[in-house]
């Protein structure tokens, strides 16, 4: 029992983005307290500025190829971690910009809103770096608690409260399951770091442990059958929070899932591929079919989000480096398209105080820009070229077909058509129907910026994705030796076999 912690300057450098953000969120909180007369949107720009610094730092890491691990490999900074950190920080910046108008609706605690958003972002950045189960548990809860509060942020709104409560109950339930799963894995292996676990043999305890961990992460990403909180929470939460919730935590959770499946469980690939195939098929089909019946934009996007998660799971089920690449790329396309769509929902919600699809009637006449942007985002989600979503879906399918997951691809393709239908229903409302109130709509500067970023991302990723593909390929480089397509050729091990 000796104390053996040594941290050099180079080690600390790896922690700089997180530290910077931690300091910054304290600054935001203090500024909020210290200057009560400061207009609150300045806090938003302050937050964005800080996040910009973090983003710059992360990009520098990525370009300079700075990587390493700390604390007995429990905190790693590698391409994957950097990718997801950039992803999360980027999403956070966009969400904060999109929130500026919405926050005016809150009656109190406007400043704390930004603090909590930054807090969640910090948690998700740690998630991206988490390389052991304890870190997974802590960072997961860290990032989620911020959302508990944010979802219930509209204190006078019963729907928001209810959404917060449901999210919370299911969240802590998932946390308990996660904790129990971790305990079982720990019992079977004596280790928590992913790489160490990989050496473990195959026992029922381990299987159940990982199943429970997967269930908890499934809650996080909202894959069927762990999706039940998604529609209500999305519906009830303040729309910017919904936007945030629909993207950033998913990305961060996939960082963990990728590490877990590709590092720890690589030996059991045939078993978990089946599990993921099942989850993917259920998610896609359920999400898309239920989405058809939705009348509320946020609920529709919630169900479509479930379906999109199903699509992403295809990449995970492929279980190859290429599958990983595809997940990363898909998440990028999803970031721009989904956030863009939510930005429009926020904007329209701010203007007409409604999220019902019916109220989007004739949006094209009221604001051609909003309608066009929404069209682009929805079509990207549906996977129509030349938009990003198409490339994302294709990438995923290519990765999956290389592994011979035909059933999954067929289901995925059918689902594309189903999703096309309900997205087009919205398009129809916007473009074909006549507005009940023809007054024109216009949106504020920050919101416009978000929409433009979304449009630019959706188009660039669709038309010239190669730089981004290069990026994601580089980001998952460490898996190229761990997981290759030959892994699927190993003899199948039954999941509960003796």
């Amino acid at each position: 029992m000796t104390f053996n912690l040594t941290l050099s300057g180079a080690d600390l450098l790896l922690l700089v983005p997180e530290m910077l953000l931690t300091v910054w969120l304290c600054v935001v909180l203090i500024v909020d307290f210290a200057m009560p007369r400061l207009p609150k949107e300045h806090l938003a720009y302050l937050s964005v500025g800080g996040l910009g610094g973090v983003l710059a730092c992360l990009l520098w890491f990525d370009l300079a190829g700075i990587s390493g691990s700390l604390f007995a490999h429990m905190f790693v900074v590698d391409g994957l971690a950097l990718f997801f950190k950039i992803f999360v920080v980027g999403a956070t910046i966009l969400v904060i910009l999109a929130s500026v108008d919405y926050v005016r609706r809150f009656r109190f605690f406007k400043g704390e809103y930004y603090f909590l958003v930054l807090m969640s972002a910090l948690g998700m950045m740690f998630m991206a770096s988490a390389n052991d189960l304890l870190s997974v548990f802590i960072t997961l809860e860290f990032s989620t608690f911020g959302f508990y509060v944010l979802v219930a942020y509209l204190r006078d709104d019963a729907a928001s409260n209810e959404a917060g409560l449901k999210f919370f109950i299911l969240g802590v339930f998932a946390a308990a399951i996660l904790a129990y799963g971790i305990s079982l894995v720990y019992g079977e292996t004596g280790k928590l770091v992913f790489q160490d676990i990989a050496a473990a043999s195959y026992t029922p305890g381990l299987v159940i442990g990982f199943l429970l961990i997967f269930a908890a992460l499934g809650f996080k990403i909202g894959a069927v059958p762990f999706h039940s909180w998604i529609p209500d929470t999305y519906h009830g939460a303040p729309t910017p929070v919904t936007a945030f919730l629909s993207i950033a935590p998913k990305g961060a959770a996939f960082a963990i899932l990728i590490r877990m499946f590709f590092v720890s469980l690589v030996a059991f690939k045939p078993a978990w591929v089946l599990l993921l195939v099942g989850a993917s098929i259920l998610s896609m089909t359920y999400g898309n079919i239920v989405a058809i019946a939705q009348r509320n934009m946020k609920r529709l996007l919630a169900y479509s989000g479930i379906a999109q998660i199903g699509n992403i799971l295809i990449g995970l089920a492929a279980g190859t480096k290429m599958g990983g690449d595809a997940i990363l790329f898909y998440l990028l396309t999803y970031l721009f398209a989904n956030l863009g769509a939510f930005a429009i929902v926020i904007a329209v919600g701010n203007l007409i105080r409604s999220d019902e699809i019916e109220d989007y009637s004739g949006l094209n006449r009221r604001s051609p820009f909003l309608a066009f942007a929404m069209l682009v985002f929805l079509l990207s989600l549906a996977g129509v070229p030349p938009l990003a979503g198409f490339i994302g879906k294709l990438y995923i399918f290519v990765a999956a077909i290389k592994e011979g997951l035909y059933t999954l691809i067929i289901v995925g393709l059918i689902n594309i058509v189903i999703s096309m239908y309900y997205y087009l229903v919205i398009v129809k409302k916007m473009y074909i129907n006549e507005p009940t109130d023809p007054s024109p709509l216009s949106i504020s500067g920050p919101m416009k910026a978000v929409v433009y970023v979304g449009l630019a991302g959706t188009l660039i990723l669709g038309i010239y994705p190669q730089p981004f593909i290069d990026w994601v390929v580089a980001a998952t480089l460490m898996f190229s030796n761990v997981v290759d397509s030959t892994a699927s050729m190993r003899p199948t091990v039954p999941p509960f076999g003796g």
Partner: protein
Amino acid sequence: MVPLSAYVALSATLFATGLIGVLIRRNFIIVLMAVEIMLNAANINLVAFSHYLESMTGQIVALFVIAIAGGEAAVGLAIIIVVFRGKISTNVDEINLLKW
């Protein structure tokens, strides 16, 4: 000497109890309590493994679980208070503004 499997069995029983409690009870606070039972089950496991595997990691994880539980309880109860102010109810069935 108590065998490890006894601890595991105890923990599993408690976990199952908590799980069933979460699933069947209507009262949010009791649901939260059931979650606490599940967390405790996990803690028993962790500490028992820590002891039998001669590693401190389990205990540390258990400690973090307690900390997390504390933080979440604070937030969760705050949420329940907010909801209670609005609806005068803490029952799952009655919180149904949003259809499931």
